[in-house]
């Protein structure tokens, strides 16, 4: 399953909820978009929880949204960057998509 996070982890609990439900499961991936991309940056209070999740699941971030916020240079190691084409491919590759609104 592909999990889409579109809010900053400092705005609501979507990321924490997602990691609690999906963090230990197999064949799951997270895609950060919109303000959610702050969850993919270095040095934040949620970095450790995202890094722990990366042991089990792939983590992606939408590059145009990182660039719009000027944080493309602060992405955590191991996070894969995609554009909208890659976003479509991720949705196609996973049987289900869950937007954590």
């Amino acid at each position, binding site marked *: 399953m592909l999990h889409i996070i*579109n809010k900053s982890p400092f705005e609501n609990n979507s990321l924490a909820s997602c990691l609690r439900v999906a963090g230990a499961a197999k064949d799951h991936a997270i895609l950060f978009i919109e303000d959610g991309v702050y969850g993919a940056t270095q040095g934040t209070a949620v970095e450790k929880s995202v890094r722990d999740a990366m042991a089990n699941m792939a983590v992606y971030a939408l590059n145009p949204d990182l660039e719009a916020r000027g944080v493309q240079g602060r992405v955590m190691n191991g996070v894969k960057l995609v554009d909208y084409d890659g976003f479509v491919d991720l949705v196609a590759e996973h049987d289900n998509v869950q937007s954590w609104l």
Partner: protein
Amino acid sequence: MKFAIMINEGPYTHQAADSAYLFARAVLAKGHEVTRVFFYHDGVNNATRLTVPPADDRHIVNRWSELAKAHDLDLVVCIAAAQRRGLMDENEAKRQGKDANNIAPGFRISGLGQLVEAGIQSDRLVVFGD
């Protein structure tokens, strides 16, 4: 592959209306099919043709109308959400005794059944919202 898209956020609010549009374009550019775009909750505000953004800003409503025309998209607005927010087509305006309608070209008003149907008939349903 068949993609359905659901939009729950109004235009010019945060980013969901823009993300959904750019995603839809990417889906079409890759040769996939967009079976339906369903507008729900505040998302119905993406469908009013009375929207007039400043000249140097993107026109979120017209963008959808143009994409629908170019790719024969089915843009469906939830009727209950639309009625609450004062969005109506000609039939609905007549039925409610209103003196005008405001739905933009390419959009149509229907019910939640259209969302369920889109979910069943598509390979993927991607939700954008607040």
